[in-house]
Structures are given as structure tokens and as C-alpha cells.
């Protein structure tokens, strides 16, 4: 699977790593703590690809912005926090 980029698949929405300085603003916007956000595993194929794209290790606790497209609202943005596993 080394050459294959999972982000290219139709079923996979856009994943973006959130800059550390933006994290506070986002958490405040939803008025939640990091532990209340949905989670994504560090071993998730999408995180692995992101690591490859950025060329750096992504540590646990960072946020990932997920931009989904679907028929109800067109575009929706969700956040997931990276957890161990």
C-alpha cells in the first residue's frame, strides 16, 4: 500500500492537520474540551498519509479538520482529535 494515497479515494473526505495556534479558537467555538471531540487513531491510514505528506511525525492530541461533502448540507466541517492506537 506504500504507493497508494488513500485520500484520493471517493469515500475519504479531506483531512487537514489543524495548526497548533488555531486549536484554542476552534475548541472555544464549539465550547468543548479536546476529550469531548470525536477521535481518530494515530494508526489511521489517513493520518499515516498526512504524516507522509508533511514529512513529519504527528503527535497525539493534535486536531484534524475533516471537510465532508454530502447531500444534506453540501459541505460540513468536523474535527477529530488524534489519539493513540
Amino acid at each position, binding site marked *: *500500500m506504500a504507493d497508494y494515497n488513500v485520500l*484520493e479515494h471517493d469515500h475519504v473526505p*479531506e483531512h487537514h492537520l489543524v495548526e497548533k495556534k488555531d486549536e484554542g479558537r476552534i475548541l472555544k467555538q464549539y465550547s468543548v474540551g479536546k476529550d469531548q471531540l*470525536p477521535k*481518530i487513531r494515530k494508526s489511521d491510514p489517513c493520518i499515516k498519509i498526512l504524516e*507522509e505528506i508533511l514529512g513529519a511525525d504527528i503527535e497525539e492530541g493534535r486536531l484534524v479538520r475533516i471537510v465532508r461533502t*454530502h447531500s*444534506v448540507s453540501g459541505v460540513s466541517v468536523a474535527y477529530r482529535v488524534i*489519539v493513540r492506537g
Partner: protein
Amino acid sequence: MARKDTVNALIRRGVSAKVSEAIANAGFKIGDLKKAPFELLLRYLSEPDAQDLLDKIGAKKKHMDMKPKTKTKAAPKEKDEKKLKVRRTDLVIPKKVKDLNPQEKKIAEILGKKKVSLPRSIIEELAQYQDHLNLKIKDLEKVIDMVLEQYELHKIDPNESIGIVSAQSIGEPGTQMTMRTFHYAGVAEISTTLGLPRLIEIVDARRIPSTPMMTVYLKSKEKRADSDYARMVASSIEETILPDIAGVRTDLDGMKLVIEPDMKKLDSKDISIDSIIFALKKDRRLKAVVEREGNTITIKPEVPQFRKLHQMYEIIRECRVKGIEGIKKAVIRKQGDEYVVFTEGSNLAKMLENDYVDSTRTKTNSIMEISQVLGIEAARKSIVDEAEHTLSEQGLAVDKRHIMLVADMMSNDGDVKAIGRHGISGRKSSVLARAAFEITSTHLLKAGIIGEVDSLDGVAENIIVGQPVTVGTGAVNLIYSPELMKKKKRD
């Protein structure tokens, strides 16, 4: 000893004794050989010999071209380049979210001025009407104001108990579902579980669905409409094991196995005898000498023992000659103006690596597999898609948002969890809520032993103790502070 093993293993694969000795003397092992750079082999062998060797041990040609990955300084640089390349093609993300067109931009600007937002689909719809009507900015603003008003009215209230609403909205149509239905995907050969059993399967997050199925799209744009090409691809991914195409006879006198291929079947599946020999030699478990004799293949164990012969027979019975592991059947069907391959059995990881297959559209109905290969977000999407397809196939209209809530709950933890005792309901933080669901006494006993504390945050536990539940108006607390009011009045 290790050297001798290597020599034997190479000879078994049909490499000449001289070459094998040379390789083994150079300190290679079979595993190393497959990874070894081609140039390194050339130091010990002549070029045709090295080529022949790689062919025989089944190393891919592709590997040889990009082989110069020895421990030189060039290696990390190559890695960097790869990363940059990936970045350029993927992070610019052209396909998934469309940019706003001029009309939509105008509406978005007006919304921006008012410091409010509307979902993209509503903006798109508005822009479509605006295209026909061409309203003045002033009128458009009025329209948008009204849209905003309606949008606010239709939004669900904070603290509404959406879980119950969803449960009822999916549950009621569920009662109308037929108990057991099968659906035939175009051709009568492949059937998939649908109806209530399938819905239960999705919600239970089974590791393997009862009827795994893949929809494989073809990569080549020009040949998508060519039925012969599609048939060729289908037969190339269909798993063919040796007993399908050949008879295996045990020759006890000669202490060997004789494989007698059925030439008609070979022709129809486009398999040559050489490719069977290749597949047999590639099988690592088979420690034997494989030889061709006319149209039959004989296999002799290294040590003449009946036990070995029997073991070999068992291995050969499972030997895969062609295709992808787990794909039991593949049929083609025309969908729109292209041919699509439907398969019984599923192997997403291998299928996406296949050169004929469109790796951006090919999908499977096995949600666990998607979660492993494509990640949790893709799994979430496929839960929604599969559940919606199952319901709509029965003519039941359930709002997508209810299904999305279920999918969100199932994928909340980073991997797919079932709804029920082993999944979400069994992992609630409150003891009373868990006890109210299933296996009451076990939960209460365990909680008693370890001294669990219940903070009474949820619905079930508050009903048990007879308090107002924390949904709707019960979720907010109003506190009147006379001191504060006096102060405000004074100001």
C-alpha cells in the same frame, strides 16, 4: 548450514547450482534477494543470470528498476522528493469540495456582511434561483433575510433528544422490512444480503459481512465500454486455485504428486502451464522439486516420506494460480456506459493495488475492511451509504440525518463500534445506564465491588432515581440572584 539451506532452496526454484553457490557464498538469503538491488547482484553474477534468478524466485521486475536504494546518501533525498510529489497532487484537493461560483460567492458575501452562515447546499440552491431571476442586490438581501428566518425556525433546538428521535425514525420503518431478502446484483450469480438482516449486520459492526461483495470499476477510461476487456479484468481478479483447473494424483510408487491440468479450462481462463509452475515455485511452504513433463507437472518432495507427500498435497490443494485472495467470483455488468465488475468475496487492500482497477471508486460492502484500509472517516461514510441503500431498497424513506447520527456514534471512538452490549451501550460511563440496558445484575455487582460512582448525568440514570432528565428544558438550570438584579437595576 544457513548457506546450504539457501543453495538448496534456490535449486528447488530451478536456479542452476553454479549460480546458487555464487549467491550463497556472497552471503545472500532468499528473503534478501527479493529486496537486493539489481546492481548488487551484478557484482556476483552476469546480467542474464541475475535476471533469470530474479524471475525464478518471483521478485518483481518493477523492483529492479528502482532498486538503487542501498545505504547511500541518495536514499533520504528520494524520500523527500516523493513527499513533495504527494503534496502537490493531493493537498491541493481539487475534487472533493467545489469552489463557489460567482453567484454563490455573491450570496456568501452578503451572508458574511450579516455575520451569519448558511449551509452550502442552501447557498447553491439560492444561487440557482438567482441565475433565473437576476434579482437586484437589495432584493437578494431581502430574500436571504427570509431564508435565514426560515432556516432558524427549522433548526433543531439545543438539548433536543435527537437520539430518541433517530431511534424511532429508523425503528418504525424497520418494522415494515421483510425479514429475509436477497438482492441479485444484476446477474443471478451474485446475491447480497439485504433487508433487516443486513441492517442488523451494519449496526452490529460485524467483522465480515455474511455476503461480502465488491464493486470494481475499471481504470482505463478508453476501455471501460469494452466488454471483452472487462471480462479479461474480471477473470484476472477471480481467484483460481489449482484443483479448479487441474486434477492432482498421488503416485505412491514414484513418491511424487502428478498434476494433470484440464487444457479446456486452462484455455478458457487464459492460464499457461508455465504460470502454474511459477505459482507452485513461488509457494514458500512447498519444499519440493517441481518439474514439467509434457502437459503434466510432477512434484517430488526433497525427502521421500509419505508424510511429506501428504503435506504437499494439502498445500497444493490451496495453491492460488491466479487472481486475488478471497475473490470467489467475478461477473461484469453494464452500468450506464461502462462495464463494472461485481465480485463475490472482498479484498479491498489487494484490489486497490491492482493495475486494472480504478482505485478511487472501487468499493466493498465490508465496513470493517474499509475502516482498516481507508480509515475511520471512509468507514463512517460507508455506514451511512450502506444503511441508506438497505432502507431505500425496501422503499423506506428515512431521513439521512438519523442514519448519520448512528454512523457518528459508531465511529466516534476512532474505530467502528457496534451498537449494543459489546459496543456503545456497554461502554457508557454510568453504571445505572448500563444496568438498565442489559445484564443488570452483573453490572451492579461489578460496580459494587470496585465502588463505582454515578454522577447522574444521563437520561436513564435520572429516570431510575426519579429526577427530571437532562434533555430539553431539563438540561438548563435557571438561577435567580436578587443581589445581581439589584445591581443591574442600579446601573
